[in-house]
Every structure is written in structure tokens, then in C-alpha cells.
């Protein structure tokens, strides 16, 4: 094929224009498809939790954590480098970095905040998992298939909430009392809160919610008459690191 300089420049110009304008053509034909996740999608079914901090006292945390850990055979490993966390507490300034300041309410500065996997709507852990061991269920719960986990720990690097723990050793010696109804995990897999999928399927509430005397509320964000939606309608609630765009499904009512 013969081509002279004039034709070459025309073609080059046309392709440059197409390249620049291509994005807007996509936007015209399929609106919203190009930008991966610039907006929080309206929830279909989406499991969510509201944590009402005004209803918590020191014992309540322990009860919730205890309920979670005994239900799911979570090991209590004293070495903080190896510890496994499903439901635990953080200080306000660690749970909500950037929100804390010197003159904030003493009640917040001093008190622990209950934290767990946020079951984000746009979960980075799911995106990075090379084996699809971590996946998002239809009801919005970010679940794990431990059979598939190869222990690469990409998800731990991706999760901005530190909600994932790696089993450096066999966890069994560190479990005080085995719950025979639920498996343990094994050396070399990552684990995290599963929003009690096994209890939800029986029609029960998550173990921590049941143990919390109403301080934790669980429900479907997609259902406008659900308990969580009611709590969010009536109270101002914040989420952890919402600026990152992962859209957590765990809300905190800070209270008066």
C-alpha cells in the first residue's frame, strides 16, 4: 500500500480525534459503564449493620466479641503479630482517622469502637483476589471460600480497614472451646468476619447482634422498611474511611 504524507497526516489526525473523543462516545452510548465505580449503586439486597455507640458500655463490647469468637472458632493468639480478628475494638482516632481532634468529646476519645469487616459495596479485597476465594454474594456480603484461599494476602494489602487476618500457624491450639457446628481455619489462609452467613440462612441474626441488647442493628439496606434504614433515617451516621470509595455497609451512630 502506498501512502503519501498528506494522507498519513489526515489519518493520524482522525485517529487522534477518535482517541480523545472515544470516551465521550462511550458515555453517550452506554452511560455510566466506563467509570468503574464513581457512584454508589442503589442497593438491591445489601446486608448492613448499624452500630449505635450511644448504647454501648464496656461490657457490651466484650459480650459481642465473645459471642462472635465462640460461634466461629476464632483463635485467641496473644502475639499481636499473629492475632486473628473478626470483631475487635479500635480507638476513635484509629477507626476514623482524620475525624479525631484535640478538643473532641471525651466520651469518644476515651472509648473503644467496635470494628469488623465492612462488607463494602465496592470491595477492594474481592478485586485483588487471584483465586476468587473472596467474593461478593448476591445479598452484599463479602464472603470467603477457605477451600480456595492460597494465602497470598493480596486481600490484606487491599483492605483499608485491616479487617483480615492471616493464619501464620495452626489456629486450633489457640481456640479455648471448639464449636463443633462450625469449622476452624487452617494454617496459610486468610480469614475475616462472615456476617454470620450460616446463622442468616437459618433465619437468625448475627451472633454479635443477638448479644448486643439492641446496640447493633442488622438488616437490608435495599429494603426501605428495614431496621437499619429506619435507624439511618432517624440518626446521623458515619462510615469508616468513606472517602476511599469502598462504600462500607457498617454505619456508626455516634450519638449525643
Amino acid at each position, binding site marked *: 500500500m502506498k501512502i503519501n504524507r498528506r494522507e498519513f497526516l489526515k489519518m493520524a489526525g482522525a485517529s487522534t480525534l477518535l482517541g480523545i473523543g472515544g470516551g465521550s462516545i462511550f458515555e453517550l452510548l452506554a452511560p455510566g459503564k466506563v467509570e468503574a465505580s464513581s457512584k454508589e449503586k442503589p442497593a438491591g439486597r445489601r446486608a448492613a449493620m448499624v452500630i449505635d455507640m450511644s448504647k454501648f458500655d464496656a461490657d457490651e463490647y466484650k459480650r459481642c466479641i465473645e459471642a462472635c469468637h465462640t460461634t466461629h472458632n476464632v483463635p485467641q493468639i496473644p502475639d499481636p503479630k499473629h492475632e486473628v480478628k473478626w470483631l475487635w475494638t479500635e480507638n476513635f482516632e484509629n477507626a476514623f482517622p482524620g475525624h479525631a481532634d484535640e478538643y473532641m468529646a471525651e466520651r469518644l476519645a476515651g472509648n473503644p469502637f467496635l470494628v469488623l469487616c465492612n462488607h463494602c459495596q465496592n470491595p477492594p479485597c474481592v478485586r485483588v483476589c487471584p483465586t476468587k476465594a473472596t*467474593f461478593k454474594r448476591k445479598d452484599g456480603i463479602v*464472603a470467603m471460600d477457605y477451600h480456595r484461599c492460597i494465602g497470598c494476602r493480596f486481600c490484606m494489602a487491599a483492605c483499608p480497614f485491616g479487617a483480615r487476618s492471616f493464619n501464620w500457624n495452626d489456629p486450633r491450639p489457640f481456640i479455648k472451646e471448639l464449636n463443633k457446628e462450625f469449622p476452624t481455619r*487452617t*494454617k496459610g489462609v486468610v480469614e475475616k468476619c462472615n456476617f454470620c452467613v450460616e446463622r442468616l440462612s437459618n433465619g437468625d441474626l448475627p451472633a454479635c447482634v443477638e448479644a448486643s441488647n439492641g446496640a447493633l442493628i442488622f438488616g437490608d439496606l435495599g429494603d426501605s422498611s428495614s431496621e437499619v434504614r429506619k435507624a439511618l433515617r432517624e440518626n446521623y451516621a458515619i462510615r469508616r474511611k468513606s472517602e476511599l470509595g469502598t462504600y462500607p455497609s457498617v454505619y456508626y451512630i455516634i450519638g449525643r
Partner: protein
Amino acid sequence: MYDKGKIIAGLIIFLGLVTLPFFYNKEKASSKPEPSLDTPGIQQMSQPQCVKSADFMRANHMKLLNEWRDSVVRDGQRAYGIIDDVKYDKSLQKTCMHCHSNKKAFCDRCHSYANVSVYCWDCHIEPDN
């Protein structure tokens, strides 16, 4: 050929050593594994039966377990069905081992005979006895 005697003698000794296990075990067929069905759970049943036929389970229990695993973990489908008014869940720990509470005399007998090592029990908890 140099050192004929040594080479041939060496070869004979080598062959003897390699085939030794065959001669050693000659006419001594190791006994067939007999998984035991003698558990309280099974004895309680008037008509002992599994979720599938024994023939199917013997050949395909590993496939069934994989299907159960995927459907429970991935799709959240936990119910298997109702057989003779008993509801069965798709669960190794809660369904299979509820009846077959004798892992050592049931699972392990065949698995060690066939030299199969399974990693089920790394996470799943085996029954007490």
C-alpha cells in the same frame, strides 16, 4: 566385556532388591478395607440409609462433597432435601459425620488403604469418638 562376573552378579543383586517387595508380599493379598457402619447414629435408624445409594457414595462421595461445598459456600444453598421426613443439610460436619461419627473406622480405613490424603480435617472438626 571386562569384569563380567562382577557386573552380572551386581545386576542379579540389583534385580533381587528391586523385586523383593513383590516376592515378599506374594500370595499375601492385603485385606480389603471394611469401613464400619456401626455407629449410634446409624443404629438408631430403622432403615439405615444415606443421602444417596451406597454404590453411588462409594464411587462419588468426593464429587458430591465438592458439589455441596460449592453450593453452600458460593450460592448459600444449604438444604439438601428431605428423605423419610428427615431434613438433610449439605454439611460434612453436621450431616455426614452426624451418622458416620466414626471417622477412623469409616473415612480413614479406605483412605489409608488407597493412600489418599484429604485435607478436610485441617479445618473441619472430626467427631469426638
